[in-house]
Protein backbone atom coordinates (compact mmCIF):
# COMPACT_ATOMS: atom_id res chain seq x y z
CA UNK A 1 0.00 0.00 0.00
CA UNK A 2 1.47 3.35 -0.99
CA UNK A 3 1.39 6.38 1.28
CA UNK A 4 -0.53 9.33 -0.12
CA UNK A 5 1.79 11.94 -1.64
CA UNK A 6 1.96 15.22 0.30
CA UNK A 7 2.14 18.36 -1.86
CA UNK A 8 5.36 20.26 -1.15
CA UNK A 9 6.17 23.93 -1.68
CA UNK A 10 8.63 24.54 -4.52
CA UNK A 11 12.20 24.90 -3.29
CA UNK A 12 13.99 28.24 -3.55
CA UNK A 13 17.01 27.48 -5.65
CA UNK A 14 18.17 30.96 -6.71
CA UNK A 15 19.98 33.47 -4.49
CA UNK A 16 19.32 37.12 -5.27
CA UNK A 17 22.77 38.54 -5.94
CA UNK A 18 21.57 41.87 -7.31
CA UNK A 19 22.19 43.78 -4.10
CA UNK A 20 25.65 42.24 -3.69
CA UNK A 21 26.61 43.26 -7.21
CA UNK A 22 25.24 46.79 -6.65
CA UNK A 23 27.34 47.32 -3.55
CA UNK A 24 30.43 45.74 -5.09
CA UNK A 25 30.27 47.94 -8.19
CA UNK A 26 29.78 51.11 -6.15
CA UNK A 27 32.75 50.15 -3.97
CA UNK A 28 34.95 49.55 -7.01
CA UNK A 29 34.05 52.91 -8.56
CA UNK A 30 34.57 54.83 -5.31
CA UNK A 31 37.88 53.13 -4.62
CA UNK A 32 39.06 53.99 -8.15
CA UNK A 33 38.15 57.63 -7.62
CA UNK A 34 39.57 57.98 -4.10
CA UNK A 35 42.72 55.86 -4.56
CA UNK A 36 44.99 58.87 -5.34
CA UNK A 37 43.67 60.67 -2.25
CA UNK A 38 44.47 57.76 0.03
CA UNK A 39 48.15 57.79 -0.92
CA UNK A 40 48.98 60.31 1.79
CA UNK A 41 50.27 59.58 5.27
CA UNK A 42 47.75 59.69 8.09
CA UNK A 43 49.72 61.97 10.42
CA UNK A 44 48.20 64.39 12.90
CA UNK A 45 48.32 67.81 11.22
CA UNK A 46 46.32 70.98 10.74
CA UNK A 47 46.94 72.45 7.29
CA UNK A 48 47.17 76.26 6.96
CA UNK A 49 44.05 77.83 5.47
CA UNK A 50 44.07 79.65 2.12
CA UNK A 51 41.48 81.13 -0.21
CA UNK A 52 43.30 80.51 -3.48
CA UNK A 53 43.16 77.18 -5.25
CA UNK A 54 46.20 77.14 -7.45
CA UNK A 55 47.26 73.60 -8.38
CA UNK A 56 44.54 71.15 -9.41
CA UNK A 57 46.10 67.73 -9.95
CA UNK A 58 44.67 64.41 -8.88
CA UNK A 59 47.99 62.60 -8.94
CA UNK A 60 50.96 63.83 -6.94
CA UNK A 61 53.68 62.69 -4.55
CA UNK A 62 53.07 63.90 -1.01
CA UNK A 63 55.58 64.82 1.67
CA UNK A 64 53.78 65.12 5.01
CA UNK A 65 55.09 66.92 8.11
CA UNK A 66 52.97 66.22 11.18
CA UNK A 67 52.33 68.38 14.20
CA UNK A 68 54.83 66.46 16.33
CA UNK A 69 57.59 66.62 13.74
CA UNK A 70 56.73 63.23 12.23
CA UNK A 71 57.56 63.00 8.54
CA UNK A 72 56.45 60.77 5.69
CA UNK A 73 56.92 60.46 1.94
CA UNK A 74 53.51 59.25 0.77
CA UNK A 75 52.69 56.39 3.16
CA UNK A 76 56.25 55.67 4.30
CA UNK A 77 57.44 57.30 7.51
CA UNK A 78 60.81 59.01 7.45
CA UNK A 79 63.25 59.09 10.38
CA UNK A 80 65.15 62.28 9.57
CA UNK A 81 64.92 65.23 7.18
CA UNK A 82 68.03 64.07 5.33
CA UNK A 83 66.30 60.83 4.27
CA UNK A 84 63.57 62.67 2.36
CA UNK A 85 65.62 63.42 -0.75
CA UNK A 86 66.64 59.76 -1.21
CA UNK A 87 63.14 58.39 -0.70
CA UNK A 88 61.62 61.04 -2.94
CA UNK A 89 64.19 60.43 -5.64
CA UNK A 90 63.44 56.70 -5.72
CA UNK A 91 59.69 57.39 -5.72
CA UNK A 92 60.00 59.79 -8.66
CA UNK A 93 62.11 57.18 -10.47
CA UNK A 94 59.37 54.59 -9.91
CA UNK A 95 56.82 56.95 -11.44
CA UNK A 96 59.24 57.65 -14.28
CA UNK A 97 58.74 61.41 -14.39
CA UNK A 98 60.66 64.17 -12.63
CA UNK A 99 57.85 66.48 -13.74
CA UNK A 100 55.45 64.93 -11.23
CA UNK A 101 54.04 67.40 -8.75
CA UNK A 102 55.40 67.12 -5.20
CA UNK A 103 53.07 68.54 -2.54
CA UNK A 104 54.49 69.48 0.86
CA UNK A 105 51.76 68.99 3.51
CA UNK A 106 52.96 70.72 6.67
CA UNK A 107 51.22 71.60 9.93
CA UNK A 108 50.43 75.32 10.28
CA UNK A 109 52.22 75.62 13.65
CA UNK A 110 55.56 74.21 12.48
CA UNK A 111 58.42 76.73 12.27
CA UNK A 112 59.21 77.83 8.74
CA UNK A 113 62.87 76.90 9.23
CA UNK A 114 61.87 73.21 9.47
CA UNK A 115 59.59 73.42 6.42
CA UNK A 116 62.31 75.18 4.42
CA UNK A 117 64.81 72.39 5.20
CA UNK A 118 62.26 69.89 3.89
CA UNK A 119 61.69 72.01 0.75
CA UNK A 120 65.46 71.97 0.16
CA UNK A 121 65.41 68.17 0.48
CA UNK A 122 62.51 67.96 -1.97
CA UNK A 123 64.52 69.99 -4.46
CA UNK A 124 67.58 67.80 -3.83
CA UNK A 125 65.42 64.75 -4.54
CA UNK A 126 64.96 65.98 -8.10
CA UNK A 127 61.45 67.44 -7.94
CA UNK A 128 60.83 69.90 -10.75
CA UNK A 129 57.39 71.03 -9.65
CA UNK A 130 56.37 71.73 -6.08
CA UNK A 131 53.33 73.03 -4.22
CA UNK A 132 52.42 73.73 -0.60
CA UNK A 133 49.23 72.11 0.63
CA UNK A 134 46.51 74.26 2.15
CA UNK A 135 43.05 73.84 3.62
CA UNK A 136 40.46 75.47 1.37
CA UNK A 137 38.72 78.42 3.03
CA UNK A 138 35.31 79.67 1.98
CA UNK A 139 34.81 83.05 0.27
CA UNK A 140 37.19 85.99 0.08
Amino acid at each position, binding site marked *: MRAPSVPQAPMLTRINVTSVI*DVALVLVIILLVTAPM*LDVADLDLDL*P*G*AHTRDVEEQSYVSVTLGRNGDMAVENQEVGSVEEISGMLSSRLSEIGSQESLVVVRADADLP*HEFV*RRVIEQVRAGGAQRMAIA*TRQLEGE
Partner: protein
Amino acid sequence: MHWQSQQTPLDDESPVNVTPLIDVSLVLVVILLLATPLAFESSIGVKSAQKGGKEATTKKQSLRVTLTLVDEQSVRVNQTLVARDELMAALEPALDETEERAITIACADNISHGAFVDVLDKAKRCGANGIAVSGR
Protein backbone atom coordinates in the same frame (compact mmCIF):
# COMPACT_ATOMS: atom_id res chain seq x y z
CA MET B 1 -26.17 46.15 -9.22
CA HIS B 2 -23.56 44.19 -7.42
CA TRP B 3 -19.88 44.86 -7.83
CA GLN B 4 -17.56 41.98 -7.37
CA SER B 5 -14.02 42.60 -6.33
CA GLN B 6 -11.70 41.25 -8.93
CA GLN B 7 -8.06 40.47 -8.32
CA THR B 8 -5.92 42.29 -10.83
CA PRO B 9 -2.45 41.08 -11.87
CA LEU B 10 -0.93 44.09 -10.04
CA ASP B 11 -1.99 42.71 -6.68
CA ASP B 12 0.30 39.75 -7.21
CA GLU B 13 3.44 41.88 -7.44
CA SER B 14 5.63 42.12 -4.36
CA PRO B 15 6.54 45.56 -2.97
CA VAL B 16 9.64 47.31 -4.34
CA ASN B 17 12.80 45.91 -2.77
CA VAL B 18 14.62 48.89 -1.30
CA THR B 19 17.32 46.88 0.44
CA PRO B 20 20.00 47.33 -2.27
CA LEU B 21 19.21 51.04 -2.47
CA ILE B 22 19.74 51.42 1.26
CA ASP B 23 22.93 49.34 1.10
CA VAL B 24 24.42 51.51 -1.62
CA SER B 25 23.35 54.74 0.11
CA LEU B 26 24.92 53.73 3.41
CA VAL B 27 28.18 52.72 1.74
CA LEU B 28 28.24 56.09 -0.09
CA VAL B 29 27.63 58.00 3.14
CA VAL B 30 30.42 56.19 5.00
CA ILE B 31 32.95 56.66 2.20
CA LEU B 32 32.07 60.33 1.72
CA LEU B 33 32.49 60.89 5.47
CA LEU B 34 35.98 59.41 5.27
CA ALA B 35 37.02 61.21 2.08
CA THR B 36 35.64 64.68 2.87
CA PRO B 37 38.70 66.05 4.74
CA LEU B 38 40.93 65.15 1.80
CA ALA B 39 38.55 66.67 -0.73
CA PHE B 40 38.90 70.11 0.89
CA GLU B 41 42.67 70.16 0.46
CA SER B 42 44.22 72.38 -2.17
CA SER B 43 47.71 73.69 -2.79
CA ILE B 44 49.69 76.71 -3.92
CA GLY B 45 52.46 76.17 -6.45
CA VAL B 46 55.91 77.58 -5.62
CA LYS B 47 59.28 77.50 -7.29
CA SER B 48 62.14 75.85 -5.52
CA ALA B 49 64.47 78.13 -3.60
CA GLN B 50 67.54 77.62 -5.77
CA LYS B 51 65.66 77.96 -9.02
CA GLY B 52 63.90 81.08 -7.77
CA GLY B 53 67.14 82.53 -6.50
CA LYS B 54 68.84 82.10 -9.86
CA GLU B 55 65.93 83.69 -11.64
CA ALA B 56 65.88 86.51 -9.18
CA THR B 57 69.50 87.41 -9.84
CA THR B 58 68.95 87.50 -13.59
CA LYS B 59 65.87 89.69 -13.42
CA LYS B 60 65.92 93.42 -13.06
CA GLN B 61 64.77 94.72 -9.71
CA SER B 62 61.80 96.42 -11.41
CA LEU B 63 60.44 93.04 -12.63
CA ARG B 64 59.79 91.49 -9.22
CA VAL B 65 58.56 92.28 -5.75
CA THR B 66 60.42 91.01 -2.70
CA LEU B 67 58.38 90.09 0.38
CA THR B 68 60.17 89.45 3.67
CA LEU B 69 58.36 88.14 6.74
CA VAL B 70 60.06 89.96 9.59
CA ASP B 71 57.82 88.51 12.30
CA GLU B 72 54.36 86.93 12.59
CA GLN B 73 52.57 90.25 12.09
CA SER B 74 54.93 92.28 9.89
CA VAL B 75 55.95 91.96 6.25
CA ARG B 76 58.42 94.05 4.29
CA VAL B 77 57.21 94.82 0.74
CA ASN B 78 60.46 95.66 -1.03
CA GLN B 79 61.74 98.16 1.56
CA THR B 80 58.43 99.19 3.12
CA LEU B 81 57.36 97.57 6.39
CA VAL B 82 53.59 96.87 6.62
CA ALA B 83 51.31 94.90 8.92
CA ARG B 84 50.41 91.43 7.64
CA ASP B 85 46.72 92.32 7.68
CA GLU B 86 47.39 95.26 5.36
CA LEU B 87 49.64 93.35 2.99
CA MET B 88 47.21 93.20 0.09
CA ALA B 89 46.68 96.96 0.07
CA ALA B 90 50.44 97.52 -0.10
CA LEU B 91 51.22 94.67 -2.49
CA GLU B 92 48.75 95.44 -5.27
CA PRO B 93 50.28 98.80 -6.28
CA ALA B 94 53.77 97.30 -5.97
CA LEU B 95 52.82 94.47 -8.34
CA ASP B 96 51.23 96.92 -10.78
CA GLU B 97 54.60 98.61 -11.16
CA THR B 98 56.25 95.39 -12.29
CA GLU B 99 55.95 93.78 -15.71
CA GLU B 100 55.84 90.10 -14.81
CA ARG B 101 54.08 90.36 -11.44
CA ALA B 102 56.65 87.95 -9.99
CA ILE B 103 57.36 87.68 -6.27
CA THR B 104 60.23 86.39 -4.17
CA ILE B 105 59.34 85.53 -0.57
CA ALA B 106 61.89 85.30 2.24
CA CYS B 107 60.93 84.26 5.75
CA ALA B 108 62.66 84.40 9.13
CA ASP B 109 63.33 81.03 10.80
CA ASN B 110 61.00 81.44 13.77
CA ILE B 111 57.91 82.37 11.71
CA SER B 112 55.15 79.76 11.70
CA HIS B 113 54.34 77.89 8.50
CA GLY B 114 50.76 79.16 8.79
CA ALA B 115 51.88 82.80 8.60
CA PHE B 116 54.11 82.01 5.62
CA VAL B 117 51.22 80.36 3.75
CA ASP B 118 48.96 83.30 4.59
CA VAL B 119 51.42 85.61 2.84
CA LEU B 120 51.59 83.20 -0.13
CA ASP B 121 47.80 83.20 -0.29
CA LYS B 122 47.57 87.00 -0.18
CA ALA B 123 50.21 87.30 -2.91
CA LYS B 124 48.21 84.93 -5.12
CA ARG B 125 45.01 86.86 -4.44
CA CYS B 126 46.79 90.06 -5.53
CA GLY B 127 47.54 88.42 -8.87
CA ALA B 128 51.15 87.33 -8.47
CA ASN B 129 52.20 85.07 -11.34
CA GLY B 130 55.36 83.35 -10.21
CA ILE B 131 56.30 82.88 -6.56
CA ALA B 132 59.83 81.88 -5.60
CA VAL B 133 60.69 80.93 -2.03
CA SER B 134 64.03 82.34 -1.04
CA GLY B 135 66.43 80.35 1.15
CA ARG B 136 66.99 82.88 3.92
